[in-house]
């Protein structure tokens, strides 16, 4: 019996995360990381953002973004380490660190968003 590979699933997550990240992260990062802290654009107030994240749809959006973007990172970074540094003997360790990190981050996102008050 041929061994089932989980590579297609991991690649699909990488690809979906790549599309999602490309579409939404640049604008999020520009606003949150530069425009608001540097005062180029007035930052939204605490009350408004809190009410926004209270919406289940907004939380579902943030969760999907975190989940897919992290698995995108895990897959791409794993191959960067494989190809870039030629440390084949560490491949299993890299695999577990990358996907372990993505799983931990996803669980953290789920915990924060599920318990958001």
């Amino acid at each position: 019996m041929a061994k089932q590979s989980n590579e297609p699933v991991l690649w699909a997550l990488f690809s979906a995360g790549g599309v999602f990240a490309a579409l939404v992260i640049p604008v999020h990062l520009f606003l949150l990381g530069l425009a608001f802290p540097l005062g180029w654009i007035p930052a939204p107030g605490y009350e408004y953002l809190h009410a926004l994240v209270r919406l289940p749809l907004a939380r579902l959006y943030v969760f999907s973004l975190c989940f897919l973007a992290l698995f995108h990172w895990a897959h791409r970074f794993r191959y960067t380490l494989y190809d870039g540094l030629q440390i084949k003997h560490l491949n299993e360790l890299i695999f577990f660190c990358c996907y372990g990190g993505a799983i931990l981050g996803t669980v953290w996102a789920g915990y924060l968003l599920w318990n958001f008050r």
Partner: protein
Amino acid sequence: MTETRQPARYTEYHPRWYRSHVSTWWWLARWPYLKFILREISSVFVAWFVVVLLLQIRALSRGSEAYAAFERWLQNPLIVLLNLITLFFVAFHAVTWFNVAPRAMAVRFRGKRVPDLWIVGANYAAWAAVSLVLAWFLVRS
């Protein structure tokens, strides 16, 4: 003749592997290689953005004082610099991702292949539209 001939020691029928040595720094040798590695490294900055976003969510759930502290942390010059570098990398990721989209999805319409330029154009249009919608939600003074 005192020379003693040792029988040759080798494993029969097993060729010696020929492997040319590749430096660990091979990706510095040419610009396309470096571009490839930079594109792959962009994923680290994608992950960094997720961390910032989750810290924001955590601060929001802890109350207005925690959120004010989070906003001050974002004004730290080192964090601003890191976010500036991150913006460069995530934009690089977006551009390289959209530019290879036609090779990832060969769209056909009425039996004809849709030109690559249209697919790339559609991706950039979607990027602009999504960015505008998100900015509309987030820019509230």
